[in-house]
């Protein structure tokens, strides 16, 4: 009975994940296509109290990384990989969700400027910009897969951490190819 009922359940999460993967791939491709065919405006967009949009983006991306680290840390505790805090407060999982949402929100103005004002760099002789462009598109696709996966029951235990780890790794790559480059080549703090 349990074997019979587990087959459709397994099939359900597999189908759901497949749809999420296709949707994620589609979003990554669409972003890449937009960045490639859109005529880059070459304009500053948002700069806040920073001197330039690039400085704003470098710091926003660092904020994203901070929230992503917070989410990674809380995930590690939820999955029992780190012992502290010993007992999980009832709001702990909400902190995990909040950190992810804030990280995503902080990516939006950065991605907007990248796509609208600069565009996708297809030239492989510009490895930093090329890798950054690829990772930027990949990140949002992977994020979609993660959002779907986190709501799917009966996933194999390794899958959600693997997807989350992929999203986090792509974020670290994005930060290294943008903010770190900005801080080391343009200036720190850069405003």
């Amino acid at each position: 009975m349990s074997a019979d009922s587990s087959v459709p359940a397994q099939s359900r999460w597999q189908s759901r994940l497949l749809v999420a993967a296709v949707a994620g791939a589609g979003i990554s491709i669409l972003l890449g296509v937009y960045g490639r065919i859109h005529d880059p405006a070459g304009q500053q967009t948002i700069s806040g109290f920073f001197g330039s949009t690039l400085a704003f983006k470098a710091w926003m991306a660092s904020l994203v990384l901070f929230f992503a680290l917070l989410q990674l840390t809380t995930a590690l505790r939820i999955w029992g990989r780190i012992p502290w805090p010993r007992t999980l407060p009832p709001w702990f999982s909400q902190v995990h969700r909040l950190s992810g949402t804030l990280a995503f929100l902080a990516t939006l103005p950065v991605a907007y400027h990248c796509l609208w004002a600069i565009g996708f760099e297809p030239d492989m002789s510009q490895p930093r910009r090329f890798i950054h462009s690829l990772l930027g598109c990949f990140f949002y696709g992977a994020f979609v897969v993660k959002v779907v996966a986190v709501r799917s029951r009966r996933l194999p235990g390794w899958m959600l951490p693997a997807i989350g780890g992929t999203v986090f790794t792509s974020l670290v790559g994005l930060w290294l190819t943008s903010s770190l480059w900005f801080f080391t080549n343009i200036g720190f703090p850069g405003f």
Partner: protein
Amino acid sequence: MLFKRLVNGLEVFALVATAWTVLLLFTAQPPVSGDPVQDDGARIFAARCSGCHGAKGQGLSGPQLAGVVAERFPDPADQAAVVANGRNGMPAFGSRLTAEELEAVVEFTRTRLGS
């Protein structure tokens, strides 16, 4: 419970912000100066270069151009090559500008920018 509601609300806000960002990607237009006496070089500089080099070429995240670019690139062709192929953090404009536009913006930065 209140905290959970706050997080739920923030997730809804994130969805709306995402939709708004996508909408902006397809609708936002670079500002046009509307000044009929501006030549192509000035127009292109305002649209493509001023974001990093400053409206008067004074330099922002990109280096200062006004008053110094001709010294830095005695041969305009070298400067045009940088504009076309990009360098360091500067994007390549070779596939986005025609040869005439490239020449116009290089000429503008060498002669009129900052004056």
